[in-house]
Each structure stands twice: as C-alpha cells, then as structure tokens.
C-alpha cells in the first residue's frame, strides 16, 4: 500500500519565484487498484507523482510505501515511473538493449534479464521480431511501447504512468490502453494513472483523485465524480461524452459505458 499523508511542497522556497505546488495532500493507494490522478496543467500532478516515486525530496508530510519511508532507497525497486513522452528517453541501439538497460543496472543474471525483456515485450504487445531493430526505426506507438517495456522489465510493484497515451492516434491509443489494463494489469501491478481524459478514467480507474491548484478537490470512484459537475468545472476537466449525452437527453442516470447508457435510455423510453 502507498500512503500519502499531509504532503505539501513549495518550489524555490525563500526566493521571489516561490510557488506552492501541493497543499496538504493525503490519500492511499491500495494494492492491485488503478488510481487515477486528474487535474489541469499546473495542478500539481507531476510534482505529486515525483514525490511518490522518491524523485523529489519531501519537505513536509510523509509518504510510505509498503511501510517504508519514500526516502528509503529500497522503494526505488518497488516503484516504476513512466514519464510523459517516455520514448524521448530511448537511447540504445536495439530495442532489446534499451529494455534491458534497467534490469542490467539491478545486477540481474543474463538469463533473468533476457526472460524479463521477453515478458515485458509480450505485455505491451511488441513483436519479438523487433528485438534487434533500432528503436528509432519504429513508429511512435511502438517506441512508446519500448519505453514502457523498459520500466515493466524492472517488475515494479507500483507503476506510475504519466499521460501514457498523449499524442498517439486513436487506434494506437486504444491498443496501448488495452495492453496496459489487460496483460500488464493481470501481472498484479498496482497502477497510478495520471490523465485528464475522463473517458479513460471512466473505463479503467477504480478511484480517482482530482487536483486543482495543488489541493485535493475529490477522492472517490469515477461514477461518483461524473455527477459532480462543479468539481469537474473547478478542476478544468471535461465530463466524459456519455455523461454529457445523458444530460442533454435530460436523463438523470449514471453511466460509464455505452452499454450502460443504452440500457438507461431504453428504460426511460419504455416508461413513457
């Protein structure tokens, strides 16, 4: 479990550029769940995930991961973080060596590294035939997969994904999400998904934390969130298209999926 308690963070304290990025943030992430973090640009999302991953030193509050303080170096093996546009960080000559880079630094055996590369590639839907290709010859969607596989090969217990589908076309986006929330999720990893796409949150998250101006506005299920229009508005987020449609149809129901929306519309039509 990840437990975040009373975390505040200020950049450049004591200078004219001082900026409070987080104010009194508390929430838990349960093992095996998908927790989404949503908020506009500058809401503090990136600062928060870097604190949880131990990349920014805490100045106020506590973060514990499986009972260990986030300052403990051991947590580096528990938490994997995939930044936005992670493919910009690819640098090795082949797909295989890029994915193997992290596990190698962990000092694993050759056989273990090779097995982990194979498994990570399979999880993100990369064809094994691409192992010897240069990552720079691949399509955008494939490069993104290579970068994510590089983190999965570290077998983190907690995986933080910062806008994993930004900039991908709709088909590549759909495929990647299906892989992350299919094969990757099945491996038992706990996922923190940073996103401002309410549709993705509706489809994949168990719970969602909404941040605005460094504060938590809401913690709960997507279903609870999408009827709280004032929260979405304050946070600069768009309700998912299905919620908007039901509102236009003057139907006071909660639907996350098209199937649910269809059922609700059919039931209101029959009643009339």
């Amino acid at each position, binding site marked *: 479990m990840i437990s975040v308690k009373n975390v505040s963070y200020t950049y450049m304290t004591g200078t004219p550029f001082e900026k409070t990025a987080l104010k009194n943030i508390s929430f838990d992430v349960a093992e095996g769940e998908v927790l989404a973090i949503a908020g*506009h*640009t*500058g809401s503090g999302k990136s600062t928060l995930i870097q604190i949880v991953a131990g990349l920014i030193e805490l100045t106020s509050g506590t973060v514990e991961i499986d009972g260990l303080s986030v300052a403990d170096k051991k947590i580096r093996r528990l938490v994997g973080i995939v930044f936005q546009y992670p493919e910009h960080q690819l640098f090795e000559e082949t797909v295989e060596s890029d994915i193997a880079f992290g596990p190698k630094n962990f000092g694993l055996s050759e056989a273990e590294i090779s097995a982990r590369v194979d498994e990570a590639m399979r999880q993100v839907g990369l064809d094994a035939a691409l192992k010897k290709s240069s990552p720079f*010859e691949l*399509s*955008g*969607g494939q490069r993104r997969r290579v970068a994510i596989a590089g983190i999965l090969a570290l077998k983190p217990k907690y995986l933080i994904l910062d806008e994993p589908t*930004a*900039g*991908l*076309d*709709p*088909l*590549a*986006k*759909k495929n990647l999400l299906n892989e992350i929330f299919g094969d990757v999720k099945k491996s038992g990893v706990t996922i923190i998904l940073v996103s*401002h796409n309410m549709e993705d949150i509706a489809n994949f998250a168990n719970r969602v934390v909404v941040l605005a101006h460094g504060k938590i506005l809401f913690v709960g299920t997507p279903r609870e969130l999408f009827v709280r229009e004032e929260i979405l508005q304050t946070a*600069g*987020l*768009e309700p998912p*298209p*299905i919620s*908007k*449609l039901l509102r*236009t*149809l*003057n139907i006071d129901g909660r639907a996350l999926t*098209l199937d649910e*929306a*269809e059922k609700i*519309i*059919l039931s209101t*039509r029959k009643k009339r």
Partner: protein
Amino acid sequence: MEIIQVKNLSHIYKSSSGDKVALDGVSFSIADGEFVAIIGTNGSGKSTLAKHFNALLLPTDGKIFVDGLDTSDEKNLWHVRENVGMVFQNPDSEIVAAIVEDDVAFGLENLGIAPEKIRERVDLALDDVNMSDYKNFAPSKLSGGQKQRIAIAGVIAMQTKIIVFDEPTAMLDPQGRREVLEMVKRLHAQGKTIIYITHFMEEAAAAQRVFVMEGGRIILDGTPREIFTNVKEMKRLGFDVPVAVEIAERLRRKGFKLPQKILTAEELSEALR
C-alpha cells in the same frame, strides 16, 4: 476561388533501409476561406502533407499550387511562405524568444518589416489571442494553451492567408484545447483558410470539411456529418464516433426509427422526443 490545388502529389522518403511512400498520388482543392480538418492514424501521411503547404517539403511527384504558385519553383518560395503560417504540436519547440512580444515579432523581423509596423502588428496579434497582458512575460512561465496562443499570435502577425495547424492540441489539457480551438474558429470567421490536423474527433467536427487519410491517400472527403456518421468506416480505422452517433446506431438496432444522419446529442434528443 481555390487557394490550394494539389495534383497527384506523391512524396517518397528515401533511406538506407528502403524507400517509404508517405504520400501516394493525392489530389484535392481547398477554397479560399475554407476550414478543413485532416484525420488519420499515425503514419498515414498527414504531417508530410502539411509540410508541403509551405514548401518545407517538395513533391517527389505531382504538383501543389498555393495561391496559384507552384511550390516546387524556387522563385515562388518566398511568396508561398508569406502566405502560409504553420503551428506545430509542441509549443516549447516553436518558441524562440525570451519575452512573449519578441517571439511574436520574430517572423516579422525576418520579413524585413519596419519597426513601427512590427510594433503595431504584434500588439494587434496579441490582442487577437487575448494575451496582451502577458506581452512582457517569459514564455516559460505560461501554460501550454497560452504558449500555443503565442505561437498562433506569431502566425497572425505574419498576416498569412492560410494557417496550417499540425496537431496543435496534442500536448494540452482540456482547458488549453478549448482555448486553441476557439482561436482557430475565430480565425476562420475572420476569413483565413484553415487546415487543421488532429486526433481529436470533436475538434475535427468543428471544420466545414474533413479529409480522412490512410496509407498516404485521402480515402474520405466530406462534411463532418458525412464522415462521422459513417460508423463502419470510422470503426475500421479505429476512430471513435461521437457518442450520439453510436447510441443512435444501437437504438436503431433495438427497433427505434431514427434518422440516419444524427451527429450530436441535441439532434438525438430531438429525434427521441
């Protein structure tokens, strides 16, 4: 009047690992003042096409005429670029100056325009994108949406007839996306010709005409209504159709008699009444 004419345009990227056909005999015309959105999967040729409009790329085969000028004729290059402004995906890689107003002025300085004229055009352009209050700010202190508006102001100041947007909202949050799309609609209302590449279907729906690209060709060309109610083809390409279209389709299967061309929630609501 047609401001852009593309005739049998092909573009082949040559590399040691083999040639790649990015555009495969594309032909179309765009009228002066038209707002055209281009959608398609990555690698379908959208960005390659975009770079032909201001001669950043030249055709391997075929021709493209901008305002009647052949882009592959070197003596037309200057005039073509004076007519076509470009806004790209990543605002951070477009912004060159340390102060907002310097950035907006950059293109004008290159055109050799008199300083007092530059002053005037920069002020107007910043006013146009509602960023006058930020003219002395460092661009790095702005949000993504604000940075894109600065990039757009730079193009407005150039007073080009045509503006090409290549996924301008891909890196923005919902608020930033709204700001940019509003700006684009306004530019269109002012008479600019807009070519707008996007992965967001709701943005493409704001255009008058939509091209769908696949494998270096334009496979569909129609109004947003014609394109987005073509559920079968949209699904084959992996695109989402608007929720209202999807729900209308499902209700028809359940025996509801609904018109074929429902596109928006409002229209569905009307039809169900």
